[in-house]
């Protein structure tokens, strides 16, 4: 005797297939929501800003006169910020990840630190700005120079890099590390020869994504007091500076006074987006090119 009645199954069949089709469209809608908003943003920004991007805009100095204003100062500011953020986060982030994953014994201390790092990744960026203001700008008396801004942004993205590097380390198969230990290699030799080469693509991908997050951050820089108008170009990490997102912020803020500032902001957004696009593509390229297969 069959336990499943074929006629009832037949009756339900229609509904099941209908449900299947409906859900497909619901998921499609969910995807479209993000895509449409993003497309609108890009079209508007290109529309407003593209006409303003020319040689003078990219290489010129800041000016109150919208027609003559350029963003070279902000580009250089962002560049010098990265000169601080990239090495600090890479060295400290990967070092922390190696310690947490490979040296620290699993236990209460380890899970306490781990939970805190995960929580730190979710702390609003403005809080890091206040931290940077207190420690670097005031306590260490740096003032609002590139170094202070870079260290603040480093703190902000450090949890992201640590977590990415930890995941990359965890993804190294244990049979490789066992083979190394099994031949009498020390822990450091195993890390250097086996774990790091295998984990590096993942670590770099995480690091680049974190950098692109740092490039776009505005709130912490506003808090540490990056001024609106800096005429001289920064030429090192001890100079005062402005950065691309700061420039966007101030021009948008003042667009009620000078309408053209809105176009300048849009043009700067295009430059910033292009920069982020290049960084993210590099990350994907590194991941695909250097990922080892076992």
């Amino acid at each position: 005797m069959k336990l499943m009645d074929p006629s009832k199954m037949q009756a339900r069949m229609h509904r099941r297939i209908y449900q299947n089709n409906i859900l497909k469209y619901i998921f499609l809608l969910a995807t479209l929501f993000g895509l449409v908003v993003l497309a609108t943003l890009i079209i508007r920004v290109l529309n407003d800003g593209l006409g303003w991007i020319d040689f003078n805009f990219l290489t010129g100095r800041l000016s109150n006169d919208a027609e003559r204003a350029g963003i070279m100062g902000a580009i250089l500011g962002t560049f010098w910020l990265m000169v601080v953020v990239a090495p600090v986060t890479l060295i400290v982030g990967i070092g922390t990840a190696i310690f947490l994953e490979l040296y620290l014994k699993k236990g209460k201390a380890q899970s306490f630190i781990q939970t805190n790092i995960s929580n730190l990744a979710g702390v609003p960026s403005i809080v890091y700005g206040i931290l940077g203001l207190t420690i670097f700008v005031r306590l260490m008396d740096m003032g609002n120079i590139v170094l202070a801004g870079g260290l603040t942004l480093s703190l902000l993205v450090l949890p992201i890099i640590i977590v990415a590097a930890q995941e990359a380390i965890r993804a190294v198969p244990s049979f490789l590390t066992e083979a190394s230990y099994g031949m009498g290699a020390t822990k450091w030799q195993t890390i250097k020869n086996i774990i790091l080469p295998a984990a590096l693509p993942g670590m770099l991908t995480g690091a680049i994504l974190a950098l692109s997050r740092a490039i776009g951050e505005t709130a912490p820089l506003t808090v540490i007091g990056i001024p609106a108008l800096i005429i001289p170009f920064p030429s090192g990490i001890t100079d005062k500076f402005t950065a691309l997102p700061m420039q966007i912020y101030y021009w948008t803020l003042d667009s009620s006074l000078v309408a053209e500032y809105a176009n300048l902001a849009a043009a700067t957004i295009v430059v910033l987006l292009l920069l982020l696009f290049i960084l993210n593509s590099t990350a994907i390229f590194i991941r695909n090119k250097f990922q080892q297969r076992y």
Partner: protein
Amino acid sequence: MSISFVTETPKKELPSIHEANKQSNQVVFDTKQLNLWYGDTHALKEVDLLIYEKEITAIIGPSGCGKSTYLKTLNRMVELVPTVKISGNITYKNKDILDRSFKVEELRTLVGMVFQKPNPFPKSIYDNVAYGAKIHGIRNKKILDEIVERSLKGAALWDEVKDRLKENAYGLSGGQQQRLCIARTLAIEPDVILMDEPTSALDPISTSKIEELIQTLKKDYSIIIVTHNMQQAARISDRTAFFLNGEVVEYDKTEKLFSNPNDKRTEDYITGRFG
């Protein structure tokens, strides 16, 4: 004539299993009352075993009986499991290997290991074999070349790979990869080779090649092999230990253990009544 006044220290009474296995070959590993826990799980119980030099010792038993755990205790790889606790004694040529002063790096150079699944590094064939020598500080290219050639010959792989030493090891077949792993172990010039089910991931032809190789390696190395395959143990080993639930049920010469086991449980296992 000189008379020496050396007082003989009375020898500690050895368990009977040690008596039964006394013979001319030197002992490499002497295990006494070894107990091992993973957290609360008692994985090895009062294990007493003597492993002899230049012999092939097979360890058989059903899954989870502790045979791999015992093997990994001999080069302290078991310590990679954080919750592990060990009591008892294992001496390697009269040196206590469980003593903290015995450096694991030194032990693992004397006691090499081949794993269940071929696990070459994602590096070239050459770099795989040279790895051990390099971590022990050998930088001279000529010496490294010689070590690589000799080890690959020792693992019966040289003729198959001599023209592509710079190619990635993952281009080799499974059986070749496992022989590469054996070559990699030979390169650190160990005294003992531990093999943890080295053929369980291989096809029958590769398996028989590895078995042949193990037989020839016996001339120069003491080999301890964990195997699921009782025919394999019977074919290649000199002695066999039968583990069950973390205990050594029986340990004897292989022909004796397979033809005329002392213990009913051994008989049941080797005749395929369980396991």
